[in-house]
């Protein structure tokens, strides 16, 4: 009897408070992009439009959560000295999978993303989460952690893409949002801000997101 009770004590429900925190924390307080400064590399160049940004987010979400599970399952088998290589091989195989699927089903988008799909391999979020979390936690927790960080990455990407596409070309997902009659050529007052389409504005948009986030959550403010 006593044994059974002990087992019950140790078991944690799948969505206990601690597990839920694994998902919600990376969305804001420890966001991979704006707080941990990871994974910016392959992210920003594809935020000109919402659709490629969405595809990119989903790819990263998949690679991150699946990779986390795989690494977590193998965590007791990986020798410490060659763990980086093992991690790279796992990520690279998952990314090859994603790349081939994208080429098969959404060829246009995969052309648009060009080298950036391959660059998911070197996305620091993925290596960072493998190192910091999956190597020391159970598969289910690692999966949740992967989901959380993937969503944390995705919402920044989608926000940046939203503003860049809306202000830069007046569209969202390729549909015209700003009425045609507003444009100067139609006798209106509005014209698209071409600067938003250029790469530097992605950086400035992220800078502004960081500004907003830190003025709401003053604990995150840095020294300088």
């Amino acid at each position, binding site marked *: 009897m006593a044994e059974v009770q002990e087992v019950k004590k140790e078991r944690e429900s799948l969505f206990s408070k601690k597990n839920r925190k694994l998902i919600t924390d990376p969305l804001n307080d420890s966001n991979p992009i704006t707080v941990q400064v990871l994974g910016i590399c392959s992210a920003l160049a594809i935020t000109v439009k919402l659709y490629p940004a969405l595809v990119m987010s989903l790819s990263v979400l998949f690679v991150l959560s699946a990779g986390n599970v795989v690494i977590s399952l193998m965590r007791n088998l990986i020798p410490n000295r060659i763990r980086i290589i093992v991690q790279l091989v796992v990520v690279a195989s998952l990314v090859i999978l994603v790349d081939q699927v994208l080429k098969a089903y959404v060829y246009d988008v995969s052309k648009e993303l060009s080298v950036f799909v*391959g660059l998911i391999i070197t996305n620091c979020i993925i290596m960072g989460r493998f190192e910091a979390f999956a190597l020391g936690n159970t598969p289910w927790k690692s999966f949740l952690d992967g989901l959380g960080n993937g969503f944390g990455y995705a919402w920044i990407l989608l926000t940046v893409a939203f503003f860049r596409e809306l202000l830069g070309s007046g569209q969202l997902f390729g549909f015209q949002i700003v009425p045609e009659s507003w444009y100067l050529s139609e006798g209106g007052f509005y014209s698209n801000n071409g600067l938003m389409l250029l790469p*530097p504005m992605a950086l400035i948009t992220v*800078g502004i997101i960081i500004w907003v986030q830190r003025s709401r959550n*003053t604990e995150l403010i*840095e020294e300088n």
Partner: protein
Amino acid sequence: MQELINIFVKSIFVENMIFAYFLGMCSYLAVSKKVNTAVGLGAAVIFVLGITVPVNYLLENYILKEGALSWLGPDFAEVDLSFLSFIMFIAVIASMVQLVEMIVEKFAPALYGALGIFLPLIAVNCSILGGALFMQERNYNTIGEATVFGLGSGVGWFLAIVAIAAIREKIRYSHIPAPLRGLGITFIVTGLMGIAFMAFMGIKL
């Protein structure tokens, strides 16, 4: 010769890894607090890019590309291994980084100490893999062009990280709104530098 110089100048200024493609941003943001460490990391990146891009070029052209294996005999003329390129490139990069790490540890221990964790992280520096993938996408004709492209991208990255490190050393004395301090202002300054670098886009090469 002129072609080589064009590629070199283009990869430094017009298609700068940081300002035009945001590659290698993580280490760029993390290591750019002091000029000294920035110079060290920048030099390491030039070196690694200068080696890995030509090595990957050979790999791509003699093993991976469609029909690249034809030197083995007519049976292999139609083999296309290009789907393996990611994993091969990353293996080459990881081993080259290991090599560089050993060399730096032997000949410049002070630099080794200063770089610390960031040296192995060059393996996951996007600009290195990005260099190899751009090389693959742009189909350079000779190994010379690939080498020059690699070196040029490295120099461009070096330039960017040293410039931002110098700015960050000075920015400490200015009065910035508290939530923007640190990361936020670095992003915005990088954006402004990127806009400045866009001026080079007009140059026809």
